[in-house]
C-alpha cells in the first residue's frame, strides 16, 4: 500500500477563525433550533422557528409537522451562519460571555418585536404567554452565548498564540 493512501497519513489543515466561526454559526443554528422544536412540541412555547420561516408564508399540512420543523432547522442553520458572520465582523474582540448574551437578546428583540409584523403565524408580543416569552428569550440567550463566546474565545486564543510566537522569535533574535 502506498503511503498516501493510508488514512492515518493524511494531515488535515487547521481551520481559520472565519471558517470556524461560520461552522459554529451553522451548528449553533441547528442545535438551538432543535431545542426550540422540542420546546414547541412540549408546548413550552406557542411559536417555533418554523412559525417564522415556514408557517407565516405557507400553511400546509407538512409545515405544521415534523418535516416542517426539520426543514426549518436547516433554514435557521443557514441564517445562523450570517448571524455568526456579523458577530465575527463586529464583536469578535469582546471578551467573555456577556456580549454573546446581549447579542442573543438583541436578535430576539429584532425578530419578536421589530420584525414581528412580517410574520403572520407569530402573535404580537403583548399577546404571547409569559412561558413563550421566557422560553424564547432563554433559547436566544444560550444561542448568543454559544456563537459569541465561541468566536471571541477562538479569536483570543489565536491572538495569544501569535503573541507567544512573537515573544519566542524576539527571544531568539
Amino acid at each position, binding site marked *: 500500500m502506498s503511503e498516501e493512501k493510508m488514512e492515518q497519513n493524511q494531515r*488535515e489543515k487547521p481551520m481559520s477563525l472565519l471558517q470556524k466561526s461560520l461552522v459554529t454559526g451553522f451548528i449553533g443554528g441547528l442545535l438551538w433550533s432543535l431545542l426550540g422544536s422540542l420546546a414547541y*412540541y*412540549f408546548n*413550552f412555547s406557542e411559536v417555533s422557528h418554523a412559525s417564522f420561516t415556514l408557517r407565516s408564508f405557507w400553511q400546509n399540512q407538512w409545515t405544521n409537522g415534523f418535516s416542517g420543523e426539520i426543514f426549518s432547522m436547516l433554514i435557521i442553520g443557514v441564517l445562523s451562519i450570517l448571524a455568526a458572520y456579523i458577530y465575527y465582523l463586529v464583536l469578535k474582540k469582546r471578551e467573555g460571555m456577556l456580549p454573546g448574551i446581549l447579542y442573543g437578546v438583541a436578535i430576539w428583540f429584532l425578530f419578536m418585536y421589530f420584525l414581528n409584523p412580517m410574520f403572520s403565524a407569530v402573535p404580537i408580543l403583548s399577546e404571547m404567554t409569559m*412561558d413563550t416569552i*421566557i422560553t424564547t428569550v432563554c433559547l436566544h440567550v444560550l444561542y448568543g452565548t454559544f456563537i459569541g*463566546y465561541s468566536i471571541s474565545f477562538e479569536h483570543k486564543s489565536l491572538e495569544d498564540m501569535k503573541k507567544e510566537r512573537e515573544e519566542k522569535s524576539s527571544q531568539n533574535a
Partner: protein
Amino acid sequence: MIMSKSQKVPVSDNIAENQRYLKEHVGVGVSFDVGFRQIKVLKKDVDIYYLTGLCDTSFIIEIVKKLVEINDFESNHRKVKEIIHNRLVHQQVEEVKTMDEAVDQLLSGLIVIFIDGVKEAFIVDVRHYPGRSPQEPDTEKVVRGSRDGYTENIIENTALTRRRIRDERLRVEITKVGERSKTDIVFMYVQDVADQGLVDLVKQEIENIEIDGISMADKTVEEFLVSQGYNPFPMVRYTERPDVAAAHLLEGHVIILVDTSPSMIITPTTYFHHVQHAEEYRESPAAGTFVRWVRFLGIMASIFLLPIWLMFVMDPTLLPKGLEFIGPTEEGNVPIVAQIILADIGIEFLRMAAIHTPTPLSTAMGLIAAVLIGQIAIDVGLFMPEVILYVSISAIGAFATPSYELGVANKMTRLVLILAVAFYGVKGLVIGCTLYVLFLASRRSLNTPYLWPLIPFDPKGMFQILFRVSVPLTKRRPSIVRPKNNHRQP
C-alpha cells in the same frame, strides 16, 4: 541549648552533641519508633539512626555487618570517613551537613549515620513503606485491558506511569508541601507537548500552598489548585488507572501525584472529561460510541428527567398528543413534589448506608430498602408507583456517571431544578436550565473553559466527544490543552 528554629544547625563532630540534638528534637527515647544503634568502627563511635516501620531491616543488617567488618580488614584510623562511605553497600548514599536535613530524611524512613569526629552525616535510602500492591481500582473497572492501578506509594506510581511512557521527554518533578507533613507532590508532563504556561501555573500554585499538613492529600491539593468555592462541579478529573493517566500525558495534560493517595489529578479538565470512561477506549469505536451515548442519556436523565416529569404532572396540558398517559392516574395523599424529594433523599440514605455497611450486612440492607420500603410505601399510599419509577431511573443515571463527583453535583442540580419547577412551572425549568448552562460555561479550571468543546464550540473536539473516534484517525491533540506539538503521529 537554645537555638532559634530558622537557624540551620550543622552536624557536629562531637557525636554526643548530635545525640543530644536528636533526643531533644525527634524524641529519641520518648517515641518508641525512633531508635539508634551504636557500633565501634576503628575505635570511633558510629551511630545509626532509624525509624522502625518505614525501613527495610534486612538492608540495615547488611550495612551494619559491612561496617563492623571494617575492623577486621582496615587499619587506617585517619580515613575513617572515606572507608565508611565506601563500605555503605547501597546505591543511594548521600552526605548532609545540617541536622535539619538529617532529621527530615530520618523521618521519611532513611537511615542516618553519624561518625564521631566527622562533620557530615551519611544518609542511606533503605525506605520500605507499608502499602498494598497495585490492584484494579474499584471505580474504573474495565472488561479487558490492564488491571493495575495506582497505589498509595508515590514512587510506585511514578514507576507505573513510566512503564507506559518510556519517552526521554517525560518530566517528573517533585516538591514537598506541608510545614509538618512534608508530603511529596510530583507533577508529570511530557516536555515538548504540554503547554509551558500550564506547567508553570501548576508549579506556582503548588508552591504557593501554605499549610501544616495535607492528610487528605489529593483533595486538599485540588482545593488549593482550582479555588472552587461553593461550586459543586468537579474542576479536576481523578483517575486511578495508569493507562488513563498516560493517555492524558500524551495529550498534553499535566498530571499531579500526591503521596499517600492513589488518585491522580488530571489538569486541566472540562465537564466532558467527566463523562468519559476508559471502558469506551477498550471497545471498537462503534461500540464505544454506543456505550458513550447510552451513558450521556443516563446522565441527562439524572438531571432533567424528574423536573420535566414533575412539570407535566403539574400541568398536563403541556403534553403533546399521544403522550397523555404520562402522569399519575390517581391523586395521592402527598403532593408530588414532596414525594419526589422524599424518595430522592431516601435513595441518598441508601447510598450513604451502602458505603458504611459491611458487605455481609449490605445484602440484607438492600432487601429491606428495595422490597420492604419501596413496596410498602406504595401500599400505604405515601408514594405513587410512578414517582418510584422516575426517581429510580434518575438515581441509576447518576450511578452511570463515570465521575462520582459529577454525579453528586448533578444530583444537587436536579434538586434545584425540581424546586424551580415546583414554584414557577415552565418558567422555572427554562430559566433554571439556562442558568445551569450559563453557570457551567462561565467556570474556568486553570484558565480552561469548563464547557469546552460545547461552549466555546470546537467542531473537532465536539466530534471526539460525541463519537469515539478510532485511534489511527486521532491525528491531533485536543487544542484545549494548547499543546506545543499538535501532531500525534510524528
